[in-house]
């Protein structure tokens, strides 16, 4: 919105000292958060942070490069299983195992990127969906991955520091998240990011101008898979136990929904979308304990519906919220934010 006078200003990370100040305040708040909050809220924060990482990666692919992926649960699973196996069987320390597992996921991402050169839309969706299903099936069958018995996550040790509480893990997680988000933001502002956006907007025109479609499309898949892999590796330690059944198609669909609801092509949007959907997911199961509405719903259930299925109301609410956001603001939550800003900019005229 503000005028940029040269290229350096355009790619600068912090556009003014005020932004730096608020950023430091935000960092302070995030790091001090576990001192005030209960363990449960820290657990929720961990869960949301992981989804933010994955959503940002998926946003790069879907929002900035214009592809589609319904198989991100597969990369998530590769990250989770990879990290645990590298730590348990190969004895690598956590800080090494995590990026290695994510790089393996990125490798798979590269392979998944190859069909994307020829496919688009629902065709690419099915190809990625197939990939996600394949990963779950293969992991479930091969004994190395513990099969369906699942794997337990070992403890993380970083030097002398053993992480075994949610709060300690939170510190590590927040650091990684901030680092990854800053990296993504930088990536988007450089020529690599511009190449992605060019591919989304007009890929034939982009290729005539010298953008190597093969390289950048597969790169987009690989980077987004890398992020999902990191998210998966961290998830294994939040949950302390992983099993192939966790990485379902529903999970992939949820990731996609987070990105779209938050706002395609906007990093702030992915953060907001991930936060909102995860929070709803975890909190909606308590819907019956809302004072008046809860009682009314129970009464309704006893007479017209089944009281046994009453917890399914959370799906109805979840789905309705998703539909309403997309109906009224196709640009997602970020669009809501932009619209609010524009409105207040010219208020009260």
């Amino acid at each position: 919105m503000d005028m940029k006078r040269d290229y350096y200003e355009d790619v600068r990370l912090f556009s003014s000292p005020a932004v730096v100040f608020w950023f430091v305040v935000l960092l302070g708040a995030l790091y001090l958060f576990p001192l005030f909050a209960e363990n449960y809220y820290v657990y929720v924060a961990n869960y949301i942070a992981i989804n933010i990482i994955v959503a940002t990666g998926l946003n790069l692919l879907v929002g900035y490069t214009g592809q589609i992926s319904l198989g991100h649960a597969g990369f998530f699973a590769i990250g989770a299983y990879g990290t645990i196996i590298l730590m348990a069987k190969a004895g690598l320390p956590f800080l090494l195992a995590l990026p290695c597992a994510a790089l393996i996921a990125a490798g798979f991402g590269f392979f998944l990127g190859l069909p994307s050169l020829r496919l688009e839309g629902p065709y690419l969706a099915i190809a990625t969906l197939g990939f996600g299903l394949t990963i779950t099936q293969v992991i479930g069958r091969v004994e190395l991955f513990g099969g369906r018995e699942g794997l337990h996550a070992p403890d993380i040790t970083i030097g002398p520091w053993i992480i075994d509480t949610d709060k300690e893990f939170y510190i590590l997680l927040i650091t990684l998240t901030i680092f990854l988000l800053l990296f993504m933001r930088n990536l988007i502002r450089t020529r690599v990011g511009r190449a992605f956006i060019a591919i989304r907007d007009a890929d034939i025109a982009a290729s005539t101008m010298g953008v190597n479609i093969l390289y950048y499309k597969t790169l987009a898949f690989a980077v987004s898979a890398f992020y999902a892999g990191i998210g998966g590796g961290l998830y294994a330690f939040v949950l302390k136990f992983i099993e192939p059944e966790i990485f379902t198609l529903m999970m992939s669909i949820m990731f996609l929904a987070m990105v779209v609801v938050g706002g395609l092509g906007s990093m702030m949007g992915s953060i907001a979308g991930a936060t909102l959907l995860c929070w709803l997911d975890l909190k909606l199961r308590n819907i019956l304990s809302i004072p008046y509405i809860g009682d009314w719903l129970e009464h309704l259930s006893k007479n017209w519906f089944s009281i046994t299925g009453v917890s399914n109301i959370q799906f109805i609410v979840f789905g309705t919220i998703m539909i309403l956001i997309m109906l009224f603001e196709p640009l997602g939550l970020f669009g809501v934010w932009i619209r609010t800003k524009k409105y207040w900019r010219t208020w009260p005229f």
Partner: protein
Amino acid sequence: MTDLIQMIVSGIATGSSYALMGLAMVIIYKTSEVPNFAQGEMALISSFFAMMLLTSFNLNVYLAFSLAFLFAAVLGCFLEFAVLRRAKEPNVLGMIVITIGIEMVILGFVSWKFGAEQKTMPFPIDPYDSLFIGDIFLKKLDILTLVSALGLMVVLFVFFRFSKLGLAMKATQQNSVAARIVGVRTNRILMTTWGISSLVGAVAGLLISPTIMHPYMMWDPMLKGFAAAVMGGMTSLPGAVVAAYMLGIIENLFGGYISIEFKTVVAFVIIVAVLCFKPSGLFARHYVKKV
């Protein structure tokens, strides 16, 4: 040898229900250009509606089914009218998320109303009654599904190719503004397509329900139907059906001879392989993008 034929026959039987779901998805994609993720649940609620009519109100079977079809058609029209149309300047991903939202709402609704335990559908044909041709067995229900799938495919194909409504639908898909200029009521066309698609889905749901009836019964058929529709070409009705049969046969053959565990994986690998050679599916014309 008889095993091979039996597997192919079983594959055709399963392929029929995938074909019906695939048909439903292609119909919507032809006009709205959005893969409808709520397809399975729309079929689900129609089947449960039929079951409710049959068990709670004790209606005659044919009356109950007809009412269920009517319900399905109205539901489809209603969803298009009330939800999809209200989206302002939608992009494809936004519409997909809307269909996912619809899917969750309907699924939650059905689970809430009927509970999660498996139910039974009082169907006139015993699902496990079978005919024997030599050593090959074929369930009567499968024959009915096969006939419905092929019958609907022919009816819909003829309808879309030769009737005025079908022509209007093609026009709406190719260029909706131009269609409106020449007098095609695009809104009504979209509503009708959703209604027809929901009806086809309801047929699929009703034919699946005798063997299995609980709120999550349509997930797998919908997924396979979607995959079949993609493999056949999202804009081609016969393509979806042929691809669905191929999918069913490949799964059964692979499961029988090589490995049951990986049969779903192989199915998807083959789909991806097919797509790599024919990016728009087997039977659709590949529209080369204009710069």
